[in-house]
């Protein structure tokens, strides 16, 4: 099954459906985290990579893994665009995860500015993966702006609180024809599994791993959970549960033709 079930983002194929964050743990653990998570995409903050030679995060990311630089620190579309361009100059490739926050307390994304930045960067040939608050109208705007995926938050970033926005993410999964990648707030493998059962295309996590006692082991657990959730989704089980049970006597049995 796995071989045929590819995650396609902006024309690029991935086998793994777990995207790994890199920001909150020792650089020396990145390699082990990638391997145990089976991750093929890893995010990194451009501002963090903007360092001199002493110890650059870029040097710790194994070959063959696709970099997903993020624009954290951007407060509006203009800043996000500048950071994305810098990522390209730094050799991070064409993928970019747009993060625009006007609030330093909850780090909630600014949907309107995100749409603006998506349009500009998509036109410049970036594979744009916008982080957003799960709102259907914004998601549609992002599709029109040229996004390659949509990344709704599950709960406040770093909170490990799980799928607080479950119903709204489900709406995006049902209505948007792009990969919906659940990002932020996924605190445990079971939550990642649930997101995948709902039909999410992938899950991203950072804090849940960074705060684990044994990071590589937790990475392994997430990989398994994401795979299990995906299988459950493909098998159809998850959707039955989400939509509720069917009555045993049909309501339309009285119809005669």
């Amino acid at each position, binding site marked *: 099954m796995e071989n045929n079930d590819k995650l396609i983002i902006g024309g690029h194929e991935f086998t793994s459906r777990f995207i790994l964050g890199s920001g909150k743990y020792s650089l020396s653990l990145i390699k082990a985290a990638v391997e145990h998570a089976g991750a093929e995409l890893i995010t990194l903050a451009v501002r963090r990579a903007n360092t001199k030679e002493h110890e650059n995060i870029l040097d710790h990311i194994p070959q063959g893994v696709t970099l997903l630089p993020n624009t954290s620190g951007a407060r509006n579309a203009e800043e996000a665009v500048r950071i994305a361009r810098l990522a390209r100059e730094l050799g991070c490739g064409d993928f970019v995860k747009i993060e625009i926050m006007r609030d330093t307390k*909850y780090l909630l994304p600014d949907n309107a500015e995100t749409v603006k930045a998506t349009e500009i960067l998509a036109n410049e040939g970036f594979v744009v993966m916008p982080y957003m608050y799960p709102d259907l109208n914004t998601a549609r705007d992002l599709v029109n702006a040229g996004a390659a995926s949509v990344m709704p938050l599950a709960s406040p970033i770093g909170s490990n609180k799980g799928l607080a926005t479950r119903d709204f993410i489900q709406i995006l999964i049902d209505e948007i024809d792009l990969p919906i990648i659940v990002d932020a707030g996924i605190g445990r493998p079971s939550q990642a599994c649930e997101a995948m059962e709902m039909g999410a295309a992938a899950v991203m996590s950072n804090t849940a791993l960074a*705060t684990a006692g044994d990071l590589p082991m937790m990475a392994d657990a997430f990989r398994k959970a994401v795979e299990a959730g995906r299988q459950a989704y493909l098998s159809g089980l998850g959707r039955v549960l989400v939509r509720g049970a069917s009555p045993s006597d049909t309501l339309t049995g009285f119809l005669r033709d």
Partner: protein
Amino acid sequence: MDNNYIFDSEGLSEEALKRKHKLENDPSCRTDHMKHMEGQDRIKSDIFDKVMEQFNSYDPAAYTAKDVSRALQQSTIGVEEFKALLSPAAEPFLEQMAERARIETRKHFGNTVYLFTPLYIANYCENYCVYCGFNCYNKIRRMKLNTEQIEHEMKVIADSGMEEILILTGESKAMSDVKYIGEACKLARKYFRMVGVEIYPVNVEDYKYLHECGVDYVTVFQETYDNVRYEQLHLAGHKRVFPYRFEAQERALMGGMRGIAGSALLGLSDFRKDALATALHMYYLQRKYPHAEISLSCPRLRPIVNNDKIDPLDVGERQLCQVLCAYRLFLPFAGITVSSRESKSFRDGIVKIAATKISAGVSTGIGDHESKYTGKENPDEGDEQFEIADSRSFETMYKDMSDEGLQPVLNDYLYV
């Protein structure tokens, strides 16, 4: 009249000595510290009143173990819970507070610890603050680095590996004006990824200018939020104006700065009340300017000249730790900086619980980085503002932090 605060007044003229004694002994000759001086911006803000109201009404002794216990059971620590956690009643709960603080710090910052170094470029000062070694009546070697010297210092620091710098001056607009500081900051942008300033409070236009010079972070210490005590400690100079200093961070944000930091100098007044006001000051600013990155420092008085005359209200390491844990629980997302005034053992411990940023390779003198870093003698150095307790170099600090299981971060910032 007695010479109240300075033991060494040899260098002062008769007239200066007389004025100094008058300032110390006759409050009526001092200016109104609650009134702005000419040329100082007055901004419309409700933050001052909010913080002062909380400061004045807070009675740390009124809280009980039950209040603290209840506070620790809440998922979100609000203002009332924070007050309980700062109270003496919370001292027996320190370990519990530390455990929870550690979790919050990890959630928001992971295992990262940011490193920076301060650079003092001038130590001229026009203020008379009785507890400070830089004060205008103190006979110290005064110095102001010229462009060439500043660049030399920056090169020495940058070569050590440091990428974030905090530029400091004494508080003298005449000797180190905003243009001079701005030029230093432009130079700093050449050698460092991130530039902050800790200088005398300035007007919005000046902050705007400094921002254009490459500065994005402004630190101002209120020293104490107890305005009666403030009046007794800051006898002359621009710093005497309590509300103008209080509003500095807000003016910095209005001038386009990304981040602000502040603190009281714990020990000048009741440190629990000052800690409350410090955190609330930043808290209300972030509520009003949600994009602002806020950061707290936690300087406490260390042995200095006139220690006995000032009567510092002692803040031990346990109390400081309590304050920092309470800060972390109330403001989980805020940066917390612990300076080299604190010992190695304290800093190594507190970065695992609540602090997110520490200095390394520190000198509080002027123009002495090369001699401090390499041992090369330089007769042309200005005196230090205070003694430091943790003199670890950048390299040692980087290694020590890594050995502690933390990830040192030299830069996590872009000037955009």
